[in-house]
């Protein structure tokens, strides 16, 4: 039905999810894992589904892969509805969280499996497997059993196996979660490189906000079966639209405020301290509305004199690259300011000091709720 109303988009969308719901169970135990989700994923994009466990991100991935079928809605791949197709008929491949490598096959046989199932000629499979082994730098281990290689190597084989049939879209289900910290950092860079070299659309699922921010072209933040916000990492971080997004990604200060006036997506808001600042504003607010304003700790500045906000330093926490100042505002709330540490000139602020906090125009963001 929505398909009739929504105008056809140009084909640069790789995947378009249209009003998809997924209901598990019935009656009392009925759970909506996905609740009327719509999102477009562009071609050649590194797109991340980010959210806490149980938010529906893996369910959405499974629907795109075909391991599950939506209760309602459409999933378009290059303009064609693939929602009713079984997984083996979709030009979409998956990297599984536990890799799911076939233990009775060699590394090369694993990588060639998809092409073999597609009935490609032997020579083509061999050439493609060799190219994939080179791409993930595993040439030397082609003849090994998958149980004889390390976790990081298994990860590379899983990637090569999913990329070998040249899918239109590659789905990655928290593929880095089983790796240790250092290897994970390496694989993050490796994944970006692979995406760049292959030009394949990546849909990446993670609960790790840092991973999402560093790797993605765009991020969809999910919670309770809904997509709350879609945007670039900067967009999501600097302009969170909802309290959940602001809270889930990075550290945030929440401040109550009143809208004085708004024009062109910007509002003049009055903070509880009586100071007025400019802040971007989502649609739908009228002057006089009580709102919540968020300020990132590193977007505020600690001052020796009275400023936008005023209070007393409660705690100073040193983090190496930066220092966190926990300030008790005069209006009774806590506020955290993060300042980068310089080689010389310590902040010279210690617990008990009176300080001002400068929040510039544009450093704050008004939340939707």
């Amino acid at each position, binding site marked *: 039905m929505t398909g009739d109303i929504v105008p056809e988009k140009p084909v640069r969308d790789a995947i378009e999810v249209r009003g998809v719901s997924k209901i598990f169970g019935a009656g009392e135990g009925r759970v909506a894992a996905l609740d009327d989700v719509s999102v477009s994923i562009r071609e050649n994009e590194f797109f991340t589904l980010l959210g806490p466990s149980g938010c529906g991100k893996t369910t959405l991935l499974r629907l795109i*892969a075909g*391991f599950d079928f939506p209760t309602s809605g459409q999933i378009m791949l290059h303009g064609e509805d693939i929602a009713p197709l079984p*997984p083996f008929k979709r030009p979409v491949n998956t990297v*599984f969280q536990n890799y*799911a490598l076939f*233990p*009775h096959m060699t590394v090369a046989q694993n990588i060639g499996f998809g092409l073999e*199932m597609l009935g490609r000629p032997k020579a083509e499979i061999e050439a493609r497997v060799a190219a994939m082994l080179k791409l993930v730098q595993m040439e030397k281990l082609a003849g090994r059993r998958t149980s004889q290689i390390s976790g990081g190597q298994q990860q590379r084989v899983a990637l090569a196996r*999913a990329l070998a049939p040249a899918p239109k879209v590659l789905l990655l289900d928290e593929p880095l979660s089983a790796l240790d910290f250092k290897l994970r950092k390496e694989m993050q860079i490796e994944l970006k490189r692979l995406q760049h070299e292959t030009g394949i659309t990546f849909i990446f699922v993670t609960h790790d906000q840092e991973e999402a921010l560093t790797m993605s072209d765009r991020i969809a933040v999910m919670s309770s079966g809904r997509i709350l916000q879609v945007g670039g990492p900067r967009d999501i971080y600097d302009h969170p639209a909802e309290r959940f997004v602001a809270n889930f990604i990075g550290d945030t200060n929440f401040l109550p405020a009143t809208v004085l006036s708004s024009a062109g997506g910007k509002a003049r808001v009055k903070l509880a301290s009586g100071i007025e600042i400019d802040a971007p504003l989502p649609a739908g607010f009228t002057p006089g509305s009580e709102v919540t304003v968020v300020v990132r700790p590193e977007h505020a500045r600690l001052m020796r004199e009275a400023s936008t906000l005023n209070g007393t330093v409660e705690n100073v926490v040193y983090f190496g690259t930066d220092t966190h100042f926990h300030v008790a505002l005069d209006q009774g709330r806590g506020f955290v300011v993060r300042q980068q540490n310089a080689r010389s000139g310590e902040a010279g602020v210690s617990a008990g000091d009176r300080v001002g906090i400068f929040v510039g125009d544009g450093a704050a963001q008004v939340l939707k709720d």
Partner: protein
Amino acid sequence: MASAGEGRGVALRRTGFSVKRQTGFGVIAWLCFFMLYLPILTLVLFSFNADQSMAVWGGFSFRWYESAWHNQTVQDASLRSLQIAFIAAILATVAATMAALATTRGRAFRGEQAAYAMINTPLIVPEIVTATALLIFFASIKVSTGYTGLGYLIAAHTAFCIPFAYLPIRARLESMDLTLETAAGDLYATPWQAFRRITLPLLWPGIIAGLMLAFVISLDDVVITELVKSGGQDTLPTYMLGQLRRIVTPEINAISTVFLLLSVVIVTLFFLLSRQRS
């Protein structure tokens, strides 16, 4: 203080209950082993007796092995046993594999628990009850069809071998990672291809183990065979039972020893295969 605490920790570990440290454990254990293996050892020993006695040693000889080998009835019974065991084990394993797949794969279906119980009832129902039931049931079929071939024995053996084949196959299936099949489907394998290329090769050790277990169980059966068989359909165990009622010579020992060896070999293979991890 620290060392005292440590000392107590060691003492606690020592006082943890262990059946191995109970008085008389060793004696009881050895007694059990003797009770189990001494008779078998005696049986094997006297199979090499040159004398006709089963109690008095008269020197070493392969005499009874030779006589058993040339005994036409023993030959027939052995071949019949192997034939029945071979066919019944294969049929039971095929059925057990399908049953195991149905009860572990996919969504639980209504009556799955009941199906599981029914597959395994032959393990619980007293064999003599099954045997009597089969005897009466087959008797009426024999009368109405006139068929008196080995089919009855094969059918009966297949039925009671199914749970023995089922258990190792199911165990293997349960330890298998289901995402492997999902991954195969994701890589363009149809459900049949995924089964052929992924599930079946990984299940193979379980299937072979089930097959061997079923084979040994069938080979060994007396009660059901004794009641179901028609005239001249003695298997090796029922032949031996018959012999024991008449003249007993160490030939029985020789046959038993070969039988024992065969079972040990098969069970060892079963053990090695079920231990094999992929």
